[in-house]
């Protein structure tokens, strides 16, 4: 079994997957507890619009997808805070809009763009050193925000209490939306836009079943993420299954077992 990890492409996939498990485990509990589970999926579709624009312009798709997705994340946050529309509706609008843009961009290219499909399904086994550097950079950026964890969690528990204690809740919303957008773009390259949301939502939701504190939920989400990445890559290699989908199926399995074992009585 161990020889799996001696292959360079598996090593890169493992490192990329573990970084993603850390990032998604860290942000996932915020996403889940703020009722923004749909955000990951919405941003992934936005990222697809950015990828399509990059393909149309003939530049590296990720370089366009990053600012494009970040702009959509900030737009969703603005609509949520400044209009009478709820967060899920704001996500719904932006996600359809960016996807429609993406489809138009791809049609303008007037040639078959197979590359677009690698972003739909992702390819963790085709991770390049550049992708690894991007993931590591995002991990470092996230480490810099660790001192903000307590006030983010405070505002997640009760926005009004946090605001009354002078936590800059609105600024933090934008900052967090921006960082989650970056996670989504990087994760999209690995697991595909269709499965990105799973990384943000399922490990956190699974960990919520047995944890009693928010810190516990974060550590649990990271743990579920790490175990599913390691096991998912090994299983997908052994049985020749798509790796991103195998990892997500394992996350869902952990969630199901946890939900049954720790159900409310």
């Amino acid at each position: 079994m161990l020889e799996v990890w001696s292959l360079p492409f598996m090593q890169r996939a493992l490192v990329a997957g573990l970084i993603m498990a850390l990032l998604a485990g860290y942000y996932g509990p915020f996403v889940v507890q703020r009722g923004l589970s749909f955000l990951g999926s919405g941003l992934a579709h936005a990222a697809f619009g950015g990828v399509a624009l990059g393909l149309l312009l003939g530049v590296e798709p990720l370089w366009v997808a990053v600012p494009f997705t970040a702009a959509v994340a900030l737009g969703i946050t603005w609509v949520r805070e400044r209009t009478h529309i709820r967060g899920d509706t704001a996500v719904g609008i932006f996600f359809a809009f960016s996807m429609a843009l993406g489809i138009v961009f791809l049609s303008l290219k007037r040639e078959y763009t197979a590359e677009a499909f690698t972003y739909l399904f992702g390819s963790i086994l085709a991770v390049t050193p550049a992708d690894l550097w991007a993931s590591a950079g995002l991990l470092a950026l996230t480490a810099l925000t660790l001192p903000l964890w307590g006030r983010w969690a405070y505002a997640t528990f009760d926005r009004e209490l946090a605001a009354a204690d002078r936590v800059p809740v609105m600024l933090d919303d934008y900052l967090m939306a921006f960082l989650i957008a970056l996670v989504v773009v990087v994760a999209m390259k690995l697991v595909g836009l269709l499965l990105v949301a799973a990384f943000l939502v399922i490990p956190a939701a699974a960990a919520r079943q047995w944890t009693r504190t928010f810190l516990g939920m974060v550590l649990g989400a990271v743990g579920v993420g790490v175990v599913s990445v390691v096991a998912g890559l090994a299983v997908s290699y052994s049985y020749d299954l798509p790796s991103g989908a195998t990892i997500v199926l394992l996350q869902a399995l952990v969630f199901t077992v946890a939900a049954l074992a720790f159900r409310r009585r």
Partner: protein
Amino acid sequence: MNEPRRGPEPAVELRNLTVRFGDHLALEDVNLAVPPGAFVAIVGPNGAGKSTLLKVLLGLVQPTSGEVRVLGSPPSRVDPRRIGYVPQFKTLDRTFPALAEDLVASGLRRAWPGRLTPEERKRVRAALERVGAGHLMGRAVSRFSGGELQRVYLARAFVRRPELVMLDEPATGIDVLGEADMYRLLEDYQKETGATLLMITHDWEAAYHHATHVIVLNRRLIGFGPPERALSERCLREAFGHVGHAHGISLSFGGNRHA
């Protein structure tokens, strides 16, 4: 120009306070000064601007015009550690994983705690014990009853030893015995610290018996002063359009206040 000092500075002072949300006038030209150490009940019908007033004092809502001073400064400039806030606990998100000790410690840290330091743990325990909730310390708040939550929220407000405590309908959803306990805890805290208390309530009778001052509000300030005066028939009729009967409360409260 030096004005002569007239006794201690008010805990809360409003001058011509008006708050508008678009076309909606929430508060209009409110003037009042709450003396330090007062126990103030804020009463008024639904939509009277009671919660808006509290939010202005907390710095969460900006006045459209007028001047607001809380503990001598504009709300956004007051050190929040000087203020304890007890929100309506029916808004609690019960899906959020939190222990009572986390909730109380958030009052100390002004951030959500990961792990408590031994010193924090000591202060949190003392705050919970003071409200008779020491046994709730390591328990998950998601399963607490209204009465238990109320005690934990009181401990959260008291733990930072505030000079001004603001409570938004703290008696909603708790039984009569719990309500009596709550007033005892509030009065004990006030006796010990000399803090000013500001409480929104729908219960005129409790306001009459426990408060030193009552604010009767219906967008405008209808009455402010000692309960006997502020809860007059004229004020209540002006604020609510009727007196008492609909709530089954008679105006002849009788009995001794602070009994």
